[in-house]
């Protein structure tokens, strides 16, 4: 059903947010999720490389833990992180409760199994012959790892996108550890798109919630598009 002019204007007139509010929410969402995914990637890739090419006792167990972690409920992660960061918890002295950094931590925990698991699958599919070739050409173990990552780059990109999707779309953990805080001036401190949507929906403002939801979807599509574009550019500089 197309929006006729009157409805369109009415929607905008009712729109209670200033551009500043939305911009700050998007900024917080991106900041938290991008940093979390970046940190997670730095940890996940070495782990995936390690696990992928070694046979060790308990490898099946580790792999199934990773796979379980992929679907781990975000609220539970939020609770555990909140407890850890709370004043009374083991990491209380860092004063991280209700900060964006706490949200980064909980999203790191959520994204890592996803990124590790998918990267592991991607990296394992790199043939040993190719790795041997890199080694035989005089590569160090690190060089071989780099080659493996490059060979598995499309799968790894998928892993990153999956991790990012999980992070930016979740609401359970960031709500609990972040507190959904926005300043009196409308500037978001720990309010993300997802927690803002939940807030609007809770108050019955479904249209506003839908608009925020649309922004979130566009954001995810944009990030996907950028990564895919970068991937297809890969052959550009030969």
């Amino acid at each position, binding site marked *: 059903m197309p929006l006729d002019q009157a409805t369109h204007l009415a929607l905008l007139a009712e729109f209670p947010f200033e551009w500043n509010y939305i911009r700050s929410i998007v900024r917080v969402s991106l900041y938290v999720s991008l940093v979390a995914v970046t940190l997670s990637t730095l940890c996940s890739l070495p782990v995936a490389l390690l696990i992928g090419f070694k046979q060790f006792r308990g490898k099946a167990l580790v792999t199934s833990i990773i796979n379980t972690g992929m679907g781990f409920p975000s609220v539970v992660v939020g609770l555990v992180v909140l407890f850890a960061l709370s004043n009374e918890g083991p990491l209380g002295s860092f004063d991280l409760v209700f900060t964006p950094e706490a949200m980064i931590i909980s999203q790191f925990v959520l994204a890592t199994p996803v990124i590790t698991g998918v990267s592991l699958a991607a990296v394992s599919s790199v*043939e040993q012959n190719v790795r041997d*070739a890199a080694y*035989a050409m*005089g590569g160090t173990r690190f060089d071989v790892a780099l*080659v493996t990552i490059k*060979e598995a780059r499309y799968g790894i990109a998928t892993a990153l996108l999956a991790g990012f999707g999980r992070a930016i779309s979740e609401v359970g953990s960031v709500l609990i550890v972040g507190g959904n805080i926005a300043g009196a001036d409308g500037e978001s401190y720990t309010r993300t798109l997802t927690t803002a949507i939940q807030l609007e929906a809770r108050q019955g403002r479904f249209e506003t919630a839908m608009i925020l939801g649309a922004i979130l979807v566009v954001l995810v599509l944009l990030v996907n598009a950028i990564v895919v574009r970068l991937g297809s550019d890969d*052959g550009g*500089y*030969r």
Partner: protein
Amino acid sequence: MLTASDIYHGYDGEPVFENVSLSVTPGEVVAIIGPSGVGKSTLLRLLALFDAPDRGAVEYDGTDVWTVSERRRLELRRRIGMVFQEASLFDASVRRNAEYGLRVRESWTDRLRREFADLVGQRNGTGAEIEALETVGLREKVDQDAASLSGGEAQRVAFARALAYDPDVLLLDEPTSDLDPRNTALIEDAVLKARDREIGVAIATHDMHQAERVADRVAVLLENDIIEVGPTEGVFESPTDDRTRKFIDGELIY
């Protein structure tokens, strides 16, 4: 200059070699022949310093490579090039494949600088990779995707990849088994060019005619041992070991 001495090596408790010795000398092609599964690849991998032998020594110019530091061993390893039965090229351009050996030998600053130059589209190679591609007759395909090459072309690029950094030793593991006669000839031609540059070549093959065409010496690997080694003509026409003759005549069933 690359020598395997008195090698005993096994997998899962089963011996593959019992007291095998072989040397690769500069300016000479030695062919390793034997039935499939006898361990030609294993021997080449030991020579390429992939793994240490269970017993025995692998020496480079007299130095036992497994008794020195990892860094020194890396230096020695980098004087060796290897081509496998499958081309196993990287998912990149022909150029990047050919120059890989050169890149890993550069300092990290140079490597990063090169990556950045690639990103902005400036191409400046050292030329050695181009020369290597010329040796295998593939210079004009330098900017093509490795994945678009035929099997024979890919193997030739793999050869160029190993040749580009001017190794002292070239180890070839049945490099032409899957190739058509034309590409086989191109590879063999490249082998001879390498030999003429004083590179020491060891080539594992089950094609005795190939051995006749390119090898100066032949080593016969049979029943966990090198039962015979000597100048090509001598081994093929008057082998000292009975089993050699039976193998050459195709009488031995394995």
